[in-house]
């Protein structure tokens, strides 16, 4: 058992709480650095996808998990970032500039969506973002001079001053750097007053407002940061796939993104990564399992959708804190070994929280 004696406020907001954190995350970084020489080329590509989805997931986690705003149209921001990157890199811009632009354009679009969204809340916001997602996909399909329409668009590899990240290895490290920077940025944001304001808004808008938090400003800010991260993720996604078309950014992708954070664990930074790992490895697991299933089930086209649905239902019903919550429970069990009680993480029964007046 480990006891933490906090003697200063700085200690309270330190990113690495204790030596264990330093050790394990250091080990993780080393493993990630060594990964290209250890794992096969195929799994390196999957790892790259996990990093890309983690960046997007971090953005969505900030919005949904920490600000309490729900977006079912986040793939649209991914698409805005991807197309911006494709267009700018295609015009010969070096990739750091293009990527920054992708983030900024996405953020700007995020603000535009966020503004009407401020007037509505809860479920209406989800509906507004769905509507927005459909409109953006249609714009991608029709604005052929920039996006190439439904035929899709090829994306050049990222370039900087004559150096080009066109190999899998260099691109992996590019994604790793972006993911690490994004994670640190989010962690830093969350321990700053801004991040605390987001969490306050999530927990209760009314009390946040009474504490002097400007709801509109912080909600828009959250939308903008979230969209920017999705845009940067989209830029990497475009480079990884080398070919983008509007149907990659439709409602199904948006639902996948939400699935990712729900399975990972809403309200935890780890959840974004665990969810990304789940989202990328799940199809592989299903493909492996197909061989062991009777052909009627194994070869059916609807298998993946069914499994996704069942997993989603399972997590919502039985593990609302997601994979990270499962890990927390396991860890707590061993930390306080003989004293773990069944109800420690039990969801509190609450009355139907009503948005209505009466």
């Amino acid at each position, binding site marked *: 058992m480990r006891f933490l004696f906090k003697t200063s406020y700085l200690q309270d907001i330190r990113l690495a709480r204790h030596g264990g954190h330093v050790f394990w995350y250091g080990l993780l970084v080393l493993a990630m650095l060594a990964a290209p020489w250890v794992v096969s080329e195929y799994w390196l590509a999957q790892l790259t996808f996990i990093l890309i989805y983690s960046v997007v997931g971090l953005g969505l986690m900030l919005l949904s998990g920490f600000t309490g705003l729900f977006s079912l149209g986040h793939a649209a921001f991914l698409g805005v970032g991807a197309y911006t990157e494709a267009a700018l890199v295609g015009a010969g811009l070096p990739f750091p500039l293009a990527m920054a632009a992708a983030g900024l354009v996405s953020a700007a679009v995020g603000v535009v969506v966020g503004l009407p969204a401020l007037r509505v809340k809860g*479920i209406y916001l989800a509906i507004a973002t769905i509507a927005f997602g459909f409109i953006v996909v249609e714009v991608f399909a029709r604005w052929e001079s920039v996006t190439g329409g439904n035929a899709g668009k090829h994306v050049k590899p990222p370039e900087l001053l004559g150096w080009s990240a066109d190999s899998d290895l260099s691109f992996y490290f590019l994604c790793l750097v972006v993911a690490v920077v994004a994670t640190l940025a989010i962690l830093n944001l969350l321990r700053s007053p801004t991040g605390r304001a987001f969490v306050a808004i999530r927990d209760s808008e009314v009390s946040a407002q009474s504490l002097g938090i400007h709801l509109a400003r912080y909600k828009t800010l959250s939308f903008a940061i979230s969209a920017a991260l999705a845009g940067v993720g989209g830029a990497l996604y475009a480079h990884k796939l080398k070919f983008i078309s509007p149907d990659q950014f439709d409602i199904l992708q948006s639902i996948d993104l939400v699935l990712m954070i*729900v399975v990972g664990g809403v309200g935890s930074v780890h959840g974004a990564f665990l969810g990304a790992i789940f989202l990328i490895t799940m199809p592989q697991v299903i493909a492996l399992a197909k061989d062991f299933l009777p052909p009627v089930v194994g070869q059916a086209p609807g298998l993946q959708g069914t499994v996704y*649905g069942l997993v989603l239902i399972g997590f919502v019903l039985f593990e609302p804190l997601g994979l990270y919550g499962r890990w927390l429970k396991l860890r707590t069990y061993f930390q306080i070994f003989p004293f773990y009680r069944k109800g420690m993480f039990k969801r509190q029964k609450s009355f139907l929280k009503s948005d209505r*007046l009466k």
Partner: protein
Amino acid sequence: MLQAVQIVISGAAQGCIYGLIALGLVLIYKTTETVSFAHGELMMLGAFAGLGLMTLAGFPFWIAFLATVLAMGVFGIALERVVIRPILGQPAFTLVMLTIGIGYVARGLVTMIPGIGTETHTLPVPYKDQTWNVGALVLNVEQMVVIVATAILCAVLYAMFRYTRVGVAMQASSQNQLAAYYMGIPVRRLNGLVWGLAAAVAAVAGLLLAPITFVYANMGIIGLKAIPAAVVGGFGSLPGAIVGGLVIGIVEAASGFYLPEGFKDIAPYVVVLLMLVIRPNGIFGEKLRKKV
């Protein structure tokens, strides 16, 4: 002019379908304060059940119709009991995720039925491919059936909510669950009944839509257009759902005809975004504010 009338009628028929699905959404919203994203899939299940009863089992149209609606009603009640009830009282988004999951499973399972799930089917209805000529107007019977059936269903629902005990109880519990519970109304059982009712209405929508389009596993996508309909009408208002559906249907049909290609598919979403900016509570919605 004539053309405009034709467009309005075909838009209204499509709008009735949206309205019927939106009706289910509103019913569910009124009891559990959340949006069911599985409602399009319930409609799809209804259409497939009808198809199975009519073609595989060979029942006549009317018996198959009633059996399907009843079966879907029971299915809705069972669904509420098994997966919805355990998480009642959780934040609205939990239930949204749950219904998205249910939708995935329903679509996936139907696709997995060998030989049927991946095909598109036509529903053999007695009024298939007939037209009426009224003056210079050419009316498609399938569309007229949709409009008339929606009108009848609305009248039945209105009568039920107005005059029956269970209908009044549903109204009471939708206004204030706690107070209704104190008055001795079995709120939980009513929630189940409302899900059953919503599923039954969705099944009717599916059976009405089937002759116009086809029966296929992805027909539930239309449920995503019913959500704008519910918002336009004002979530929480039953007449609003039908009116919203009609608005969305007619706007969609008109923009498909008068505007360039591509606008038809996004017209409902443009309308709903405008509505959310201008009047978030919809046409019939009440203006409510949360107080501490």
